[in-house]
């Protein structure tokens, strides 16, 4: 798109015209009697000298310092002239640099923010899903391996289930097949159960009431008889339990908010119109 515009002869012609106009303007201006003023302050000189010292690990000599100052003056003049020519307007480097400078302004502000307890408590209350302890399930499971049991698996499951529900506890650790899956899990969230047993199993266990052995429940590994021992409802922890995380997330959000707000303020000062041509509209999406 941009390349196509750059190839356009009309654009070349206009650009050339602009340059001629600008150069004429500058030449004209430099004939004016009253020159622009450049003041090299003592502070500036110290900065130049300091930068040199840092790079070379020694202070500049008198000649070097004069060189630095002359170079600074030259840079300042050329910089002003370049601004006058409008050379900054379409320069990617300058644009990005300026944008970053603006973004750093808000970064610096964020670094200085210290939330009050109340801010953190409010943030915690407003984001229960972020910090809340999810509902927890504690359960035991007896595993049946489909590889070794084959077609008998349903039948075996039924008889083991009966044994589990009728006999004294303790059998559960000897019944069923060998597995690396944990036999017993303490209070564990459904997400965590899913990471070990897979999502299908986690969903099914989430629906079980505590008490008796039930099943079989299928997982990606095979079949399971399950007894839910305890269910703990989800809760929002006290701030003291999660202060570290809340503060981190709060800061992260403040940064985002501040950036957005700042930008929204700026946006108000502009009227933006996007002149997309109808048949060019699909182009950017195609590369996604």
């Amino acid at each position, binding site marked *: 798109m941009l390349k196509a515009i750059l190839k356009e002869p009309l654009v070349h012609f206009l650009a050339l015209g602009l340059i001629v106009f600008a150069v004429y303007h500058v030449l004209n201006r430099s004939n004016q009697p009253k020159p622009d003023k450049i003041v090299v302050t003592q502070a500036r000189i110290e900065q130049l000298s300091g930068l040199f010292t840092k790079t070379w690990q020694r202070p500049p000599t008198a000649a070097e310092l004069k060189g630095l100052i002359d170079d600074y003056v030259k840079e300042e003049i050329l910089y002003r002239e370049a601004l006058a020519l409008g050379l900054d307007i379409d320069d*990617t480097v300058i644009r990005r640099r300026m944008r970053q400078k603006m973004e750093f302004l808000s970064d610096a502000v964020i670094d200085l923010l210290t939330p009050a307890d109340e801010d953190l408590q409010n943030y915690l209350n407003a984001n229960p899903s972020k910090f809340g302890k999810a509902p927890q399930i504690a359960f035991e499971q007896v595993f049946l391996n489909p590889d070794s049991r084959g077609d008998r698996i349903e039948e075996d499951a039924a008889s083991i289930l009966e044994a589990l529900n009728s006999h004294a506890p303790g059998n559960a650790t000897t019944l069923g097949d060998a597995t*690396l899956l944990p036999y017993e899990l303490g209070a564990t969230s459904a997400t965590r159960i899913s*990471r070990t047993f897979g999502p299908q199993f986690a969903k099914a266990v989430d629906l079980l009431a505590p008490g008796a052995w039930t099943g079989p429940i299928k997982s990606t590994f095979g079949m399971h008889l399950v007894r839910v021992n305890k269910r703990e409802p989800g809760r929002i922890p006290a701030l003291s339990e999660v202060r570290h995380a809340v503060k981190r997330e709060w800061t992260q959000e403040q940064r985002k908010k501040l950036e957005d707000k700042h930008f929204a303020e700026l946006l108000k000062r502009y009227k933006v119109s996007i002149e997309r041509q109808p048949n060019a509209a699909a182009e950017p999406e195609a590369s996604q």
Partner: protein
Amino acid sequence: MRHILMALTICVLAPTPSIVLAQDHLPDKAGVAATLGKKEYSPYVGREFPTRVLWGDTHLHTMVSVDAGTMNRLGQEDAFRFARGEEVTTTHGLRAKLSRPLDFLVVSDHAEMYGLMPQLLKGDPEIVSTDPGKRWYKELTSGDSDKIFATAMEIVASLSKKEPPIKSDNAVKHAWKAYTALADKYNEPGRFTALIGYEWTAIGGYNLHRNVIFRGDASVANQTVPFSQFDSQNPEDLWSALAELEEKTGAEVLTIPHNGNLSNGRMFKVETFDGRPLTKEIASLRARFEPLAEATQIKGDSETHPLLSPNDEFADYETWDRSNLDGTELKKPEMLQWEYARSALKTGLMLEQKLGVNPFKFGMVGSTDSHTSLAAVEEENFFGKHSGVEPEPDRWKHIVIAAPDSKLNVMGWQQAASGYAAVWATENTREAIFDAMKRKETYATTGPRMTVRFFGGWEFTDDDTNSRLPAGVGYAKGVPMGGDLSGDAQGKTPSFLVAAMKDPYSGNLDRIQIIKGWLDSNGELQEKVYDVVWSDDRKPGSDGKLPPVGNTVDVENAVWSNSIGSPELIGVWRDPDFDPSERAFYYARVIEVPTPRWTAYEAMRFGVDMADEVPMTTTERAYTSPIWYTPKG
């Protein structure tokens, strides 16, 4: 000034670490046996061994790394958030999230000119006032992607020079402190561990790189700054400097080498860095600091090579063997034996016989070495080696590494979507994970999160495979992966209990193998792969080889079926060729059934046709740390 201000602010805001955790003490054999022997209702009461494997990446770069920073706009905070399971927006504007969070992460940005990239891109006057700084800044912000890639490659090359092109000790110190504070901020014991680390990146072209990992928090890590290759290109100097650091500050550190496959014969050689015969002192130093090696990652797999293991049909996995890292030196076959993990473990036996110390007594981890800030190496969720090869239709034919001779360029499709580190730690804390790494109770996978247990002892019986708690039996009767069997064999044969459970989100298991390496009585190094337990009732053929498990991958639709393979395998194996006078090591390798490779997902997702040479299926695997047998006396 602003940087100083910022660093100060971060220091003030950083919470003081208040949790002091006991070092994890693993019970001895007798302790576990006693626990199991108790007549408790539940044998699980009071068990102290690691019960849940923790998953992580020990090797990840962000924009703070001088090379990654040329193309990647995501910082260390994004890296932590992504690894914890949160959604982030990539450099290219895509939304990215892991299928499941990781349990731990080491953001290991390059030590060389640490933090220079973000400051360069911010136009920091101290940095842009240097000649290379000025030019790089201009080119990196030019918006021309060819120019940016060329500059990135130039910056990578500059890492191999003796002098840093840009030197700013202050910038490094500030960036390091900002990082350690951030790691403390994201470290949540029990939920997510942010281990502090960096990568020492010596001799770029020959990849002697090491990741340096700290056990402690920012207050420990801030007593030093990253040791860089500008301090020394010699790994022996790195270990010496770390030994001095440990002595002076009480810090505890370990180092993990990676990409032996790209070192052109240098990573595990039998000489010192400058070519003298290895001494006992240097071997001890290496053994002390390098308990682990990174055996698999995006830049290829380093377990073994088909030329080194001609009888191993699984040896040729994601092999990168045409040259060294930057394509400046062709690979010669005689280099391979000093590059790959299995071969190095063998060399270690020989060196131990000679020196009395085994410098290559290491366990295994996998990691990503991604430079995108995203520890994303799931086949269907692979964000690439660096930001030049993040997901887009043509990335399979983009250049990953540009060599001087374009024939040696590494192309996008050659990237391996690999790997992760699995750690059997007693809890999810910096201390417990670090200690588990020190005792090598770890394994590597090429991406999937299969659970693998591996124990060696003298008394395992077939009946142990029926245990409802294999780990309980394992710890009671033997040593876990990373452990040692000592030489009082007395007519007994070592036996191994090995068990693996598939990743519920990935393929079934084809087989578990045990790989033995040994030094025979003639002083020759040997290796052999044994199939221990497998799926689908297969019978080994007349050549002793187990027939392949089959292949259900539908490449066009990037799907497979778990109709072959097993979700879980467990077996006991006794070494049929055991000779009590021969040094040996044993490690387990778990092989998955074939599944779609990332290229298949990508071809399907973007509707692109890739060249015939591009592999479309993969057989993912896990490598455990070895168990060593050493004869008595």
